[in-house]
């Protein structure tokens, strides 16, 4: 302790874990974790849902984006305990009975991924964007998708895929 740069107070050494009960991809799940646990780590480590990626861990890259109560949200800037009681959809919840979600299908057809690291965040962001914005033009799609960074820089395919889905009849949001 002599070299520690700050005092650890007694109550910090005795921090009770919190219960986190929520619905993920339609299934009721629960876990127990430290209050400081980020939702992205809870999904990956406690629930084994490693499709949600942790990139920057400060809200910039968008790789960790999932739907919380239907709205695309960063899970690296959300504590797991804040998500208790919510309905979450991750990349694992997009396909139905082995059939890809139309956005996944479009990403496949338009070559909208290379390494795939950004893809979960791209898909979730694109789905929420099209659910909340009808008939966007290309500029609006680019603006919305700038929420997620692709280090492979394959943006043109991503924009093409989102535009293609925007011209299809709307799909129901996965539960």
């Amino acid at each position, binding site marked *: 302790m002599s070299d520690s740069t700050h005092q650890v107070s007694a109550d910090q050494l005795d921090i009770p874990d919190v219960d986190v009960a929520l619905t993920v991809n339609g299934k009721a799940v629960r876990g127990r974790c430290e209050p*400081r646990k980020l939702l992205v780590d809870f999904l990956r480590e406690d629930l084994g849902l490693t499709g949600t990626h942790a990139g920057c861990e400060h809200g910039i890259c968008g790789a960790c984006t999932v739907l919380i109560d239907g709205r695309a*949200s960063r899970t690296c*800037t959300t504590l797991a*305990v804040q998500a208790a009681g919510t309905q979450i959809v991750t990349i694992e919840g997009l396909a139905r009975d082995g059939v890809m979600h139309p956005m996944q299908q479009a990403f496949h057809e338009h070559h909208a991924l290379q390494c795939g690291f950004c893809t979960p965040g791209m898909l979730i962001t694109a789905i929420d964007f099209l659910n909340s914005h009808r008939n966007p033009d290309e500029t609006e799609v680019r603006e*919305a998708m*700038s*929420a997620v960074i692709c280090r492979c820089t394959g943006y043109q395919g991503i924009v093409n895929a989102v535009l293609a889905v925007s011209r299809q009849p709307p799909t129901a949001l996965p539960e």
Partner: protein
Amino acid sequence: MKPPRFQYHAARTIEEAIELLARYAGEARILAGGQSLVPMLNFRLLEPRALIDIGRIPGLDAITGGPLVTLGAMTRQRSAEESPIVQTALPLLREALRWVGHLPTRSRGTIGGSIAHADPSAEIPLVLLASDGSVTVQGPQGTRDIAAVDLFESLFTTSLVPGELLTRVHMPAMPAGTRIGFDEFARRHGDFAIVTVAVALTPSEDGSTARANPESGPRYAQVRLAASGVGSVPLRLTAAEAHLLQHGTEPASLAAAAELAAAAADPVGDANGSADYRRHLLKVLLERTLESTVRPTAKRLAS
């Protein structure tokens, strides 16, 4: 890149949150949407003893309309953006929200959290100031209202005293016919802005912007101009406002107002832009935004 350890409390009422604030005597942080606080924890810029989560207090996310629109502190930015009340009564806030972070950060980020955080480059504090808004804060002594002009003291610093919680945000409904403009310059959309300007021009009661001298451009009964990125707090551009009220809105008058605004600003240079650069940006952005607000082109009207 993980938060330090902290005690966690989910307050069930405002009173409980205030009690907890008192118990931790300045060593606790309020957690609203977490879109600024959690990154700061991840970076270990903050090591609070406790977080007091106000996200589970019922009713703290309500939006109520009327001559004075009230948004509960926990109103998500996304909910405000999609609210019919905000769309009708607070067009400046509605427009500004599009510029706040990105869709996924607005899903979680809150109106009250952004104001209490008082980031000098943030859009919502700027709109509060430009709208002559105010906030209600509650502490052990009871509640009090603070006008926007008295709220922002310095970088990340408000006039709330330790132990007080920001509970509600108020903005007067903008009179019908008010024209608004909002623009900012950032390296990329969604990044922290370098300079931002907000414009609200309200015609006289009878809705006319007619003027005695047809050369002087439309005249407005009320002119509200504000900017951020040109000081440690958002700034009302009072000299430019007075100029437009007196001289109307033909192009030369807009240019003169923008010059006055730039002369009155006292920006501090940093890695994102020198003081001179910020002053220049203010002048250019303000003139351009005024022009497009007073004389919208057909394309802008359509969008």
